[in-house]
């Protein structure tokens, strides 16, 4: 602290690698993307400035149909928040309370997260295969022939069928985050409550869950923004089909960019996604803060 200049220089050196990566790969490209989103550009010629035309087209064009893509993504977010996360929390609480083989369960539940999404997608493609897939074979062997479907190939079931593996894969991820949080709860707190006569359920509800709020908030943010950004499994399973029934913003964006060479419009979708993720993260943060104040 005797030499303020070298001290400041050191701070800068410590920050430099992270800052360079962060600004170069995240911040600057966002600005550039925003710039492209106001242009008509096929990636080769010079971009032509067209103002808000891309945005207007994005939200009005029937052939792009961004509303359907957003609706699909939001539906996934709802499933994620109201089915996947509560289930993950339940698993984490159960395992943290100590059950026989707890470590084994924890490892097994987390395992799908480790497997490449393409592998998972290919496996589920085969599970859903109308002729030889395990799902239809199982239904047939149970005598439920009429329940068999072309799961990923028909408009009515494709979206639901595509959501199942997405939700299935990341249950373990959220569970692990929450489990780690629960392990951080000071044992004295829950022990005291137990001695005061609380049931394990009450301890979870009144001590553990309030204590791990910060982690729950992170989980909710990941679930919602993750749904908005979802790409991998949809791309492998349906690539937006059949007849665009499972289109999400990301698949639309990739189509615009690399099938139709509409870099301007692709950037517009990207910018819309950034804004949406940001707004949702803010809203969720606010919701969690407000409840804390009560």
């Amino acid at each position, binding site marked *: 602290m005797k030499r303020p200049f070298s001290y400041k220089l050191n701070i800068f050196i410590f920050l430099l690698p992270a800052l360079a990566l962060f600004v170069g790969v995240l911040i600057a490209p966002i600005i550039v993307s925003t710039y492209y989103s106001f242009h008509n550009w096929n990636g080769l010629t010079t971009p032509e400035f067209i103002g808000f035309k891309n945005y207007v087209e994005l939200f009005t064009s029937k052939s792009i149909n961004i509303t359907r893509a957003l609706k699909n993504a939001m539906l996934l977010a709802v499933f994620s928040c109201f089915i996947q996360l509560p289930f993950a929390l339940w698993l984490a609480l159960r395992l943290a309370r100590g059950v026989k083989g707890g470590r084994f369960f924890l490892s097994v539940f987390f395992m799908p997260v480790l497997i490449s999404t393409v*592998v998972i997608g290919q496996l*589920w493609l085969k599970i859903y295969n109308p002729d030889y897939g395990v799902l239809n074979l199982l239904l047939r062997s149970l005598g439920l022939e009429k329940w068999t479907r072309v799961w990923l190939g028909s408009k009515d079931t494709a979206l639901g069928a595509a959501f199942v593996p997405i939700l299935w894969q990341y249950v373990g991820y959220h569970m692990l985050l929450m489990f780690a949080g629960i392990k951080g709860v000071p044992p004295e707190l829950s022990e005291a409550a137990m001695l005061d006569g609380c049931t394990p359920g009450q301890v979870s509800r009144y001590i553990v869950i309030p204590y791990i709020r910060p982690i729950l908030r992170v989980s909710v943010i990941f679930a919602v923004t993750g749904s908005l950004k979802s790409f991998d499994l949809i791309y492998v399973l349906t690539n937006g089909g059949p007849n665009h029934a499972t289109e999400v913003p990301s698949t639309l964006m990739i189509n615009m960019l690399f099938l139709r060479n509409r870099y301007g419009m692709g950037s517009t979708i990207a910018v819309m996604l950034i804004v949406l993720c940001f707004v949702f993260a803010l809203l969720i943060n606010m919701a969690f803060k407000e409840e804390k104040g009560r």
Partner: protein
Amino acid sequence: MSKKAYRAPDAPRKITWQSATAYAILVIWALISLFPVYWMLTFSLKTNPEIFGENVMGLPKYWVWANYDRALNTGNMPRYFLNSLIVAVSTIMITLVASVMATYAMTRLEWKNRKRMNKFFMLGLTVPIHASIVPLYTTLSKVHLLNTLWALIIPYSAFSLAMGILIATGFMGDIPYDLDEAAFLDGCGVWGIFFRVIAPLMTPAVATVGIYTFLQCWNELMFANVFVTAPQWRTLPVGVQALSGQYTTEWGPIGAALSIATIPTLIVYIFLSRRIQDSFIAGAVKG
């Protein structure tokens, strides 16, 4: 694990119908979690007639190792695996160094705006990778890094950074400031404190950040699909996807390719899972 159970120390463990149902759900979910992998491993060793009806769920009757031979030799799987490994290891190293250094500057060194800087980095948690796909694509092609592994390592590191800093901040907060002060009084400068005090105590964070970053880049498909089109630089996800497109009707070789992509990860996971849990428990004990 049961040591940390929040149960009154002298309360007997009773088997109620509730706990039995809960246990049944745990077992069923474990089976659901394991089933796709079990199924993959078995059908990777079967012939088409077995897969398609004679013996769908059971263990293979004749172990068809030829499936693996085809996936390895005509499918180029070893190359994809190596590419993925190089990308993952490089990304983890860059992310670790950058995030631990930045966290140190933002939590242990005194300066104006350090909180604001931390918030700035946390923006990275919500920025989707989509945001930079077009500018990165054009920039990478301009500097001729498209179709190299750098085209993946650099973006992956940048996108893992926010989480790395978040995790590192949590762990660094557990290190008492007295240690810094003691080291300072012993004549350590900013760098001495970093290398002698902070860095050695960050090992639990190293495991956590490393695992998180690994997951991010090992699974990533969008960038890998777009920035690398040359077959020799494909990562596993893209390679497996391409291979599956080639062998649509022959499930055996596809199953073998999927297994080759997965088995090493599973073997490593047996070791990693202990490290994940130990590092989390170590962090929890401190906190």
